[in-house]
Structure formats: C-alpha cells, structure tokens
C-alpha cells in the first residue's frame, strides 16, 4: 500500500524486487498468445499482453513500467478465464498498477490520482460520494482542462438530481482505523500475494 495514503508521511522505495512475486504468478506462461487474442484493449496497448508477461518473467521492471499495457487493463477477466495455464492474469495486471503507483511513475499519473483519490474518499467517508470524489480528483490533477472532460456528464447527473450536493443525509462512516490497521499489518514481513482472479 502507499504509505502516504495511510499516514501522509513521505516514502522511500526499494523495489528492485517489486515485480518478483508477479513473475512467480505468471512463471508458467507458455507464450501461446491467448491472452492477447482475448483482450478487448490489446489494440490500444503498446506491448501485447503476451510480450509483457515475458518481460515480467524476465524481471525487466523498467520496460514493463514504461509501457501502458497494464494500465489499460479494464478488469474484464477474459484472459484469466481463457489462459490455458490458468494463470491469474487480471490479478497480476492489478499488481502491476500497484507497483507503478507506488513508484509514482509520471506516465501513469492520471490513473494513479484517479485510484488514490477514490480511496481517500472511501477512507474519509466510508462511501463514495461522487461529487466529493470528482472535486478531489480535479484538484489533485491540477489540470484546468480535466473538469471539462467530465462537465457534460456532471451537468447531466446534476440535472437529474443524481449527485449529492454535500451536507444532506449522506451517511458518513469514516474508515481511517481500518486503513491504518491494514497498513500496519502490511508492514509486517512476508506478506503473501493473494491468489485468485
């Protein structure tokens, strides 16, 4: 987990081995290309999923991080379903996103801020309040053009009375205690990488 998400304290990373657990997950890959053929986003990716898994197994961290392949995974689980070796590929894609966010890779900044802001909103309110989330996301992006991309959507939702406008009767159930505890548990060594998916 990103320590700054939990405590706000600055972090240093020694992640030379960061990709090793993911390499272990996909080690049995036979380079058949079923994952590439199954992926709805493969055409938008710079490396095909098959090639990227090869680089992951070889431990080529900077080549993998430089690609946009894993960030364009939309969690559809088709490759996971079809991989003849039964590898948890969607899970591995998620883990690569996690590494890129922890390394604060500049080319993945937009996705990182989207995910991080989402989780900060959950931590603070317990539920996603879409308006609060978007406001925080735009602030974090510090890109004046960003809100305009979403403006038509925001106006539509607002016109339908579908966004909570602050205050009101939204339930607030802060989850900071749970977030802190998870962070503390994750600081203990030998954290296993979860299976499944």
């Amino acid at each position, binding site marked *: 987990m990103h320590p700054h998400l939990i405590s706000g304290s600055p972090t240093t990373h020694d992640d030379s081995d960061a990709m090793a657990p993911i390499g272990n997950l996909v080690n049995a890959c036979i380079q058949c290309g079923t994952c590439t053929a199954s992926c709805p986003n493969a055409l938008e990716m710079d490396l095909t999923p098959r090639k990227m898994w090869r680089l992951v197994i070889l431990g080529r961290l900077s080549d993998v991080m430089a690609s946009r392949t894993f960030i364009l995974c939309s969690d559809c689980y*088709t490759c996971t379903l079809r991989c003849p070796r039964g590898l948890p590929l969607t899970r591995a894609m998620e883990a690569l996103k996690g590494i890129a966010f922890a390394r604060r890779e500049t080319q993945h900044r937009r996705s990182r801020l989207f995910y991080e802001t989402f989780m900060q909103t*959950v931590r603070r309110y*317990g539920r996603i309040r*879409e308006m609060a989330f978007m406001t925080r996301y735009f602030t974090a992006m510090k890109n004046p053009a960003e809100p305009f991309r979403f403006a*038509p*959507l925001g106006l539509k939702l607002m016109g*339908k009375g579908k966004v909570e406008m602050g205050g009101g009767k939204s339930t607030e159930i802060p989850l900071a205690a*749970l977030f802190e505890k998870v962070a503390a548990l994750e600081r203990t060594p030998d954290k296993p990488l979860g299976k499944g998916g």
Partner: protein
Amino acid sequence: MNYLYYPGCSLTASAREYDLATRAVMAAAGVDLTEIDGWTCCGASAAAPISDLLSLSLSARNLALAEQTTADGQILVPCSACYLNLKKAHEALRSHAKQRTMINEALAAVKLNATGSVRVRHLLDVLAVDLGARHLAPLITRSLSGLAVAPYYGCQCLRPYPEFDDPERPVSMEPLIEATGASVHVWEAGGRCCGASLVSTHPEAGLKRVCSILKAARGADLIVTVCPMCQMNLDAWQPKASRMAGEDLSITVLYLPQLLGLAMGLSHHELGLDLNLAVLGSFREKMF
C-alpha cells in the same frame, strides 16, 4: 424469500433508478430485502492495486455486518463490481486460512469479525435462478411484444466466477426478457467489456469499447444492463461515443429490473425511469 441487500455507492447517487427498480420489482415478486445497516464501499476497482488486504478487508467489513444480521443469509448485490469484490472476500474467508486470519486482524480495528457464512448473490443470479421466468411470468400484466431487447451482461457478474451463467456465451437474461413478451436481440457483444473505468482515465481507449457495443446493438429497441458502471458507460457517454464513431449511436438503455417492472405494470416513478440518461423519444412514445 428473504435477502440481505447491499446497494453499493453508485445506487445511492448516479444509479438511483437501479436501486428503485430493484426494490420495486423484488417487492412485487414477494421478496423481502433487508438493507445491511452501516454498509460501506467495497473498494471498487481502486482498492486492489493499492493493497490486496485493504480490498479484501473493505468487502469483508460488509460481510461481517451481514453475518450479524443473518448468519446463514444471502446478500443480494445489484452492482457487478461490488458483487465481485464481496465474492472475492467471501472466497478468501472460506478457503484461505491465512487470508482469513489477516482479514480478521484488520477487522478487529473496527470491532468486527467475518467468517464467510453469508452467501453473495448477484441480482441477475437471483432473478434468473431463484425467481426465474416461471415465477415472474404470472406477474406480467403488460406484454412488451414488438420490442427487441439486447441483453448486456458485461464482465464481472460472469467472470472470473462462473456462478450462474456461461462466462463466454451468457444466456441467463433471455428467458426473463422473453417472459415480458419482448424478443431477444441476438448479438455477440453481451459479455464484452464496456471499458469500465478506462472511459474516465483513458477515454480514447475506453470509448472504443462503448462504440463497438452500441454499434452491435443496432436493430434492437433497447439495451438492458445489470451494472451501474456498464449503464453509465453505455448511456451517459453515448453522445461522445457517437462523435467518436462519426455516426448517431443513440439507443435506449435501461436496467434489467426496469424492463421487468414495466412488464409487471409498475409505474415510471417506482422504476425511476425519469432518472435514466438515455431513453429515446420513440421508446417513450411506445411505452409511456
């Protein structure tokens, strides 16, 4: 029939009509829903990349609350992303002793404990399997014959857990649609990805997924969905997708329980139909 109910965040805001229609159809079918008191966000797709344990613990918190209410109950979940997250936590609690220990250590910080005794069910699973066309057919008071409906399943109610349908060629909505008198639009796109959060983070890629689904729906009168993320991608972003495709891809998009509710004679108000973002005039004239 009784279920615990986990609406999830979207159903309290951008997908309010899904919440309204789900509750209305279930009530009309004689099913009792008990909302889980104090439920919180499942972490959506944002928690897992940041931390596995956080993702599992956020979902397990809701399972723990559900267990307090009905230890051997079933949770009905209308959102596919919530469904998958709760299901993953359920699997971890049931089948991975080490993860169960870690999750409960985390939950101790909020004075909760989860065992995984409560089953997690998607709304479509409950509609198709527990109720089924046989139970719903007698409730149909208004035939929707003449409508061609494209069933859109999306991803996460089908994969990676093949609980109630074929994850490659899903069919579970078809008997329900036919029970309303409508016909099923035959297409290949029902289980293809809508682009999920890519539509927000990488629209140039995400909107292509939306375009291809809307194009495949051509010939149908409407698309029905079973997930607020799919629904939002297919309805709110329709104008943008049309601009990208260089052609008009407008089509009515309803949630499945809204379609069923219309056939059961429920009012537009009860089904939240005024909240939908894509209901074409031609459809409105036919139906309202």
